[in-house]
């Protein structure tokens, strides 16, 4: 394992220390228990937005703390959801008196830890709502499974719900917007090469030279299917078709198209995927109104990408365009 790290056990702490040093105007990093909050503290009267989860997906979530997005982020150990003892103070730091929305990716660990933390916060009088993100169409959603995973759609939920909170929406309204985004977003990913978790010291799965994993998650867990390498256009179609089918998006509708890198894939390749995905949507009569291309929710050094489509309406579009100023996403401010 070759990584720019000092000690596998100190990766998250040291990285966030550097993150705090690089963005002192935007965030403050609380070391123990570890969480990241806006530099200015909670905004009085504003609904607070908190997200968190295992580390290794940078810039998610800490990179999205700031104006128009999150109020606090709770990074766990690499690929391991954070614990209530960190989620609770992060929620307190985000609480401006108007309640706090927890944006939680649908993984058993995240759900259980945020659930416990939510109960503890409620006991202290904070109105905590939880919005689950479960946009991964690679995973079967049924009563008898853990349900779909939350993946790249999370970034869009955080941005749009953050804009709603920033414009002064009530907690009911912010919860409703976040839920609406979550309901209208679908994603699917693939991996060309696995990631290496620092404390494991070797790749999270093995792939032969000509194999790829389709339906990969963001934790180095194997995908649903292992197939031979194909041209980018074919792979893009393998990702986009199930998304479009599941979302039921069609003729005349407007979407945001998000092509996300897993951390080890060059930007140029993401644009090759974007190109085909946009073409396929155009063939379906779907208008791409907004785009996002880059490494926004990664899986350490994994090579691969995910495609995400969000069905837009006028309000979601307006909230997407609203100013945002965080270390990893910034416009209009």
């Amino acid at each position, binding site marked *: 394992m070759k990584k720019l790290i000092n000690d596998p056990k100190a990766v998250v702490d040291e990285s966030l220390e550097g993150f705090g040093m690089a963005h002192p105007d935007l965030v403050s990093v609380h070391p123990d*228990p570890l969480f990241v909050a806006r530099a200015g503290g909670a905004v009085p009267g504003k609904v607070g937005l908190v997200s968190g989860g*295992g580390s290794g997906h940078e810039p998610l979530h800490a990179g999205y703390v700031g104006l128009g997005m999150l109020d606090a982020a709770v990074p*766990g*150990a*690499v*690929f*391991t*959801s*954070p*614990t*209530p*003892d960190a989620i609770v103070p992060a929620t307190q730091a985000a609480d401006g008196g108007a309640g706090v929305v927890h944006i939680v990716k649908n*993984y*058993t*660990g995240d759900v*259980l*830890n945020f*659930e*416990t933390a939510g109960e503890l916060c409620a006991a202290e009088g904070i109105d905590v709502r939880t919005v689950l993100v479960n946009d991964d169409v*690679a*995973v*079967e959603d049924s009563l*008898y*499974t*853990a349900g779909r*995973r939350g993946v790249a759609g999370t970034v869009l939920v955080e941005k749009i719900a953050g804009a709603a909170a920033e414009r002064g929406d009530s907690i009911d309204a912010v919860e409703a917007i976040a839920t609406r985004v979550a309901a209208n977003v679908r994603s699917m990913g693939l991996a060309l090469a696995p990631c290496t*978790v620092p*404390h*494991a010291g070797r790749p*999270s*799965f093995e792939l032969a030279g000509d194999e790829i994993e389709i339906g990969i*998650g963001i*934790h*180095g*867990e*194997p995908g*649903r299917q292992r197939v031979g390498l194909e041209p980018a256009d074919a792979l893009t179609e393998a990702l986009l078709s199930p998304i479009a089918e599941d979302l039921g998006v069609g003729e005349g509708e407007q979407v945001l198209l998000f092509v996300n890198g897993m951390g080890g894939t060059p930007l140029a390749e993401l644009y090759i995927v974007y190109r085909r995905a946009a073409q396929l949507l155009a063939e379906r009569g779907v208008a791409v109104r907004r785009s996002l291309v880059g490494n926004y929710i990664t899986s350490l050094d994994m090579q691969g990408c995910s495609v995400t489509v969000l069905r837009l309406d006028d309000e979601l579009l307006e909230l997407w365009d609203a100013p945002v100023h965080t270390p990893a996403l910034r416009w209009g401010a």
Partner: protein
Amino acid sequence: MMTDLDTAWAERWLRESARVIALHREELIELDRAIGDGDHGENMDRGFGAIVAQLDEEAPASVGAALKMAAMMLMSKVGGAAGPLYGTAFLRAATSVGEAEALNGTEVAAMLAAARDGIVARGRAELGDKTMVDAWSPAVDAAGRAGDGEAALGAAADAAEAGAEATKPLVARKGRASYLGQRSAGHLDPGAVSTSLILRAAVTAAMSEIGAGGAGGGR
């Protein structure tokens, strides 16, 4: 060689658990790498390491206090799915034990049942979903059929090991392994294996006083 299932035993149980978890850290990582995200061994080792550190600092006042301390550490240090599940298990176990100074067979069975019920209440997994429940449930059943405390622990550990072994052919329906669908078959569930290690540690702790104090500490 058997000892009372008293406060000293509870402390030995936790230290022995830490020791075997540390010993099997790689194996648990490997199992989780196959059908999950490869952190189970690391997470559990971190949690039980914290428990040992806490034991070194302050001896627990009772069986219940020891289990409650463990619950808090597991809840706050392990993270992931296993943290809240084991945390709840130990918390319910502590409540079940109450003020008891030493446990008899019935109390052991009740403690294990409370732990299992806590896991099910939190995780909503059923028998056969390929989770730690598949080790806990047969353990609870076996303990209920056994005699004294030691026998109950032994039966529970045996049953947990068999239950963990039996997760191999199953297709996961809960937890991260469920994302794999059919591909999850053919692998042991890491949480079921860690459960069997922890329940076996309870037996080892009951077999001997060795392991109390610093000697058995896993780290």
